[in-house]
């Protein structure tokens, strides 16, 4: 994708840009139909006699160094925009309520959970996701440390763990295993790979 290209909100544009139907874009399209059905169902109830959300105007996001200009429904979380509009599916949706940390990204250099913030509130922000870590085919040192220390089993929480680990190291809270455990407690790993995760963060912190 070129820099500065303008994307409209939704799946169809993504599909056109990719020049064909992939499995993912089919899923997105089907998902879109399901969403429309749900909306019209709700529309029969008095509560939703609300006009549809108006676009908030163009929102500029710099994601992994690339600038995007987007027209967004204000309801969309930063997580959903990253995954569904920008096709950056490395950032995972776990609980979608801020409890698991799978959606952790860096927003203006600070780790946040992208599920609990509205993308439209971040005009001009710089966002870094797991896709933005590698440079010239080289893994980021913390990515390499996760490989080295077996910091994962199924891998679903790993992008969030790594983005959170980068924040933890940058904040200066990776001085001991106990400190790492406390300052990484916003990231849940249901496989229980915690010993490897703590070792990986500790290892990468030494080189940071």
């Amino acid at each position, binding site marked *: 994708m070129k820099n500065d290209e303008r994307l409209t909100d939704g799946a169809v544009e993504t599909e056109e840009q990719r020049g064909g139907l992939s499995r993912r874009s089919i899923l997105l399209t089907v998902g879109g139909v399901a969403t429309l059905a749900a909306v019209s169902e709700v529309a029969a109830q008095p509560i939703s006699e609300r006009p549809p959300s108006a676009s908030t105007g163009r929102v500029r996001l710099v994601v992994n160094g690339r600038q995007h200009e987007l027209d967004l429904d204000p309801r969309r979380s930063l997580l959903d925009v990253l995954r569904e509009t920008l096709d950056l599916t490395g950032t995972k949706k776990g609980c979608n*309520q801020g409890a698991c*940390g799978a959606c952790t990204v860096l927003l203006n250099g600070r780790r946040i959970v992208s599920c609990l913030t509205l993308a439209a509130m971040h005009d001009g922000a710089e966002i870094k996701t797991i896709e933005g870590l590698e440079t010239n085919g080289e893994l980021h040192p913390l990515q390499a440390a996760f490989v080295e220390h077996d910091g994962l089993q199924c891998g679903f929480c790993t992008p969030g763990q790594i983005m959170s680990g980068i*924040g933890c190291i940058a904040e200066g809270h990776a001085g001991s295993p106990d400190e790492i455990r406390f300052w990484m407690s916003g990231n849940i790993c249901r496989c229980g790979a915690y010993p490897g995760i703590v070792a990986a963060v500790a290892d990468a912190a030494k080189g940071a």
Partner: protein
Amino acid sequence: MLPFTLEKVTSVQAAIAAASSGRRFIAGGTTLIDLMREEVDQPAHLVDINALPLSEIRIEGSDLVIGALARMTDIAAHAGVQRLHPLVAESLVEGASPQLRNMASIGGNLLQRVRCPYFRMHDAPCNKRSPNSGCAAIDGLNAGHAILGTSNHCAATHPSDVAVALVALDATMQVRGPRGERTFPVEELFRLPGDTPHLEHTLLPGELILAVRIPGGPDSRRARYLKVRDRASYEFALVSAAAALDVEDGVIRQARLAVGGVGTRPWRLRTVEKALIGKPLDRKIFETAARLALEGARPLSGNHYKLELLPRTIVRALEMAGEAA
């Protein structure tokens, strides 16, 4: 999530004007977005106040003044906060995950909604979510619920940690609304549920929190926060205690104490405080005083354990405060 409009404001005046016409503020959004997604909260118009100049943390004389939009992380990491009010820093760090602390503002933290599971469960009655529908927690799963300040209509605890510290330290809040500015104790922000559990705070329509002010005192450095919970970190309190002691020659001159996880609002314990004044730093004294915290306690079917855990937590917090210097 139901449709809503989102606008941004860049002045306090514009924010108050927007709120006066029924719009709702959004700052960090960590509570609100979650509840909107579940359609537990359904605002039709939001005003993004993050661009307002209310993030400053400053020291005025012996007071610490925290702008309403200051993030939990920044407050906890501020050198002045750590020096003057370690209790505030400690309660903030214990208050949420690092990611959420990077997002959540102090104003939003104080106004966060309850974590009672029935509040977000549309097929269960909840007087907070839907007034006069009943309370599923009173005879339901209530191990995490309050034993103090409850009514037959609601027993949800206030979930904030830093609010417990602020209530202990006699912090005040500065708010501005269409009728001007006023200042009142943080303790008075929170209502008891009574017959109207859907009314949670005492802000007037259109009012915006500008800042929280924490007065310095001889006890503010000898002050600690203890949080007891099911996990070692990133979990709501079963019981928590904020204790500040002013001690001279081994004798307590002044004690300030508030507890969390047990009350429908952050719970100040003035009877316990009085029982400590003039007494030595002694575990037996702490134990006797701590029993007074149970005055008026009404346990539910699942939280009798708090009758024991509360005084023990108080005793430990007082010991920690006594050892701090």
